[in-house]
């Protein structure tokens, strides 16, 4: 498998090279350190997969993806980025990238990601996959937390952040009784039995950090 790697940081290129060198059927056919070099390199050497840093000097990531996709429609571009996927991955995929992974996950995921996109597949991390699935689900019907009133939402958020009824009452200038009433209503509306269930839901839906 012929791979191009592009990153403006030598340490990262070296790390990538080492990782790929461990796979006998992979060969790194060229390296680039900015967008311009990628374009030139892509013309000069034969390649199947390009592993690109999203943020290199010169051309921005999206432009580069589009340009490569236009010239080489059959080949795969895999984006490797310092930026969290929830903000950038969808854009990169829309622009024509075959996959997106964060640099932190590279040591575990890179090789399998390259194999997947080289075979014409798409690669997203399990976390992003889950998020996209949740979004689809949310589009079908109103997500449960949207059925809460604004005040209930706030109380739900505070419970999910691990605050006690007493703390919530103090912070919101409410009586503990009122907070408990809110809590009962929240659990009923969301079809849940415990705070733990609530916390789990809030984390899964990225309502809390």
């Amino acid at each position, binding site marked *: 498998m012929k791979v191009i790697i592009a990153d403006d940081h030598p340490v990262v290129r070296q790390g990538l090279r080492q990782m790929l060198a*461990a796979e006998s059927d992979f060969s790194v056919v060229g390296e680039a350190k900015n967008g311009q070099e990628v374009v030139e390199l892509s013309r000069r050497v034969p390649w199947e997969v390009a592993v690109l840093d999203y943020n290199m000097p010169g051309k921005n990531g999206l432009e580069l993806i589009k340009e490569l996709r236009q010239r080489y429609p059959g080949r795969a571009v895999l984006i490797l980025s310092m930026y969290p996927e929830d*903000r950038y991955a969808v854009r990169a995929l829309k622009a024509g990238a075959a996959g997106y992974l964060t640099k932190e996950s590279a040591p575990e995921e890179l090789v399998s990601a390259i194999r997947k996109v080289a075979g014409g597949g798409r690669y997203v991390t399990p976390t992003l996959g889950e998020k996209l699935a949740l979004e689809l689900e949310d589009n079908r019907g109103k997500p449960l937390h949207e059925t809460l009133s604004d005040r209930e939402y706030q109380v739900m*958020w505070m419970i999910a952040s691990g605050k006690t009824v007493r703390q919530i009452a103090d912070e919101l200038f409410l009586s503990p009784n009122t907070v408990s009433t809110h809590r009962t209503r929240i659990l009923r509306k969301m079809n849940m039995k415990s705070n733990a269930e609530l916390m789990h839901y809030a984390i899964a839906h990225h309502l809390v950090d």
Partner: protein
Amino acid sequence: MIAQSGEEALRLALKNDFAVILLDVRMPGIDGFETARLIRSRERSSQTPVIFLTAAADEMASMFRGYEVGAVDYLMKPVVPEVLKSKVAVFVELHRKSERLRESEDKLRRLAAHLISIREEERAHIAREIHDELGQVLTGLKMEVGWLAKRLTSEELIEKTDSMGKLIDSTVQTVRKIATGLRPEMLDDMGLIAAVGWQAKEFQKRTGIRCRVKLPPEVKLDIDVSTTMFRIFQEILTNVARHSRATRVDIELKVAVEQVALDVADNGVGISDGDMSGKKSLGLLGMHERALLFGGDVRISGSAGHGTRVSVSIPLRGKA
């Protein structure tokens, strides 16, 4: 300078700044009152003091009319030179002082603008340095550790490299958090509209205050205007979290050809006039100053129990 008629006086007042204007009430053509009214209706000369010269005592009846159009004094003819001299001297001195005040205000404003832009540049620079340099080195390190882990067989050592990997990951997270806190990379990569949406989501996640966001389709906007708007937005949200006790914030961003407008309304306790003018309102002052730099405008309204609404508009100078 000397003018022979009302018209001539007007022409002169258009082109010059005067410390004081002496006007005869009776002149051919436009009379003194009308001349004064016209002079003071111009932005440039709206504050210029006017002293009327009147010939006869019966004209004293029209003194009120004179004061209405901006007269500061009346002098009877024949004019006593000493009196005229000392009165004019007072206004000349006043004019000089207010001129100096205006200059120093102007300087302060320019200094504030300079400080804002320096701080913004510095933040962007530090964010980039931290994120790119530190972040990339950590990435490299993670890869090295990964390489090492693959060649280890001892369970104990593999455990060590695993925990090293986790430490590096959490350090990368921290680096990213610091860099984004200094200047969100979204703003530069994706623009104001995406950044406002992201910031609102983060705010809801951090505070539990629900945000409803209405955003226009994404367009590229001038980066300095975007930064200004984004920082004002952050300041508004900080105020909501700190003072409003709101449970909900409605955010709307609109982009038109000539301006970008942001409207943020919460359902909290409402800002009072005292809050707006109090000593703690430096944050509000900062918002006004930032907007003013680009010819923009911040309006804040609130009433007890009905929440606070902040409307910001910044003109786009054909750069949209």
